[in-house]
């Protein structure tokens, strides 16, 4: 049953080769989807280019379906895969900061690395800022420790929040994604008089 202990099965070198292959595939898909271009990424916030939103949300719902179907069939132990624990208010504040950084800078941390791979100067400065930010955070977090560790909810997911069966939540999220794609397409049409090619 997955997830598998790759290091135990393939050895450290073998597992690193697998990680390298996955990283290569991930980077290849991101770059070929245009995720190495800050203007394209930021375009989703202005409704001028919704391809990033569509790619990401499609990936999310497909991965979600694969995870929970695999769990239902006994192929994957969902309890054994990493689900980031929830610190509600620090998460909200952090999300706001990252969101503003995304709109202004045009990248999230992962896509900024993709842009560096294609030698984009704005991506390099973004990554430089990222490292400085990480350093500053680690040097100052002790002063915000009480807030940083507040409102801890543990491994808290949507089925627990809404007290619904996992399958129902998955179904509703797919509905949400479809409504969002259609709705944002209308807004795009309204503002720019055109839609992304499908």
């Amino acid at each position: 049953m997955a997830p598998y202990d790759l290091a135990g099965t393939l050895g450290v070198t073998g597992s690193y080769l697998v990680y390298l292959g996955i990283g290569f595939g991930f980077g290849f898909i991101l770059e070929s989807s245009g995720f190495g271009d800050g203007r394209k990424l930021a375009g989703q916030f202005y409704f001028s280019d919704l391809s990033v939103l569509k790619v990401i949300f499609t990936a999310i719902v497909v991965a979600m379906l694969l995870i929970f179907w695999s769990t239902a069939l006994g192929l994957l132990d969902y309890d054994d895969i990493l689900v980031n624990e929830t610190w509600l208010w620090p998460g909200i504040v952090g999300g706001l900061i990252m969101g503003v950084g995304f709109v202004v800078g045009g990248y999230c941390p992962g896509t900024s690395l993709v842009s560096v791979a294609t030698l984009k100067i704005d991506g390099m400065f973004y990554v430089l800022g990222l490292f400085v930010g990480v350093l500053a955070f680690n040097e100052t977090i002790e002063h915000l420790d009480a807030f940083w560790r507040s409102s801890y909810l543990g491994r808290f997911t949507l089925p627990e929040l809404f007290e619904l069966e996992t399958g129902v939540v998955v179904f509703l999220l797919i509905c949400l994604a479809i409504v969002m794609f259609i709705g944002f397409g209308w807004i795009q049409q309204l503002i720019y008089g055109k839609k992304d090619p499908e």
Partner: protein
Amino acid sequence: MSTVFNLPVYGAGILLAAAAALTLYGQPDLDQKWGFMAAEYGARLENREVYVDPGELLQRMNDDYIELIIFDLREERDWNIFHLVDSERVSINDLPAQRDRLRNLSELSVVVLVSNDEILSTRAWKHMMALAKPNVYILEGGINHWLNVYGVKHEEQDDHAAASLDRPDGSLRHPFKYALGARHAAAQPDEHHVPQREYTEKVRLLKKIARAGGCG
């Protein structure tokens, strides 16, 4: 051809159908999940690799190096009559509430499950493996066996001594005069003043595999 029949529409339809089917199919409960895991972990039960002798549990109760957690799964009535020092009464149905705690145990943590015999604790072991795969063991023979080894005759009715462990049915087979809980002498016997037992050590400390991931 109508533009309705294009790839995004087909894709959305397939996703919705798969999600609807998932809703009907449901997610496995702990017993079903154990069914999936049994091929990988069932041998530990069959080979009795996780059943610890009372002598080993007593030694671990006095071991300051490990963080020992004893879950007593029995009914409140039996718990009130007798239970081991520092044990926690947890119903088997309440184990899912312990999931986060179990997942965050350190590498020095050892959990031992206790019931009157091995029926309930073995079922709970399967549930705990399905929940969080902690470093968890079962008290061999349960409290009935423990009291056979460390019990105090005059605390029991009619100076009852050893109870039969044959045909386990989940019941406490020692009749006590009083409900002493953890104040009973056998709740934590002095390991230097009880007969030394020979046993095969089962408890091993596990190295935790770090879970990592995420996307920026």
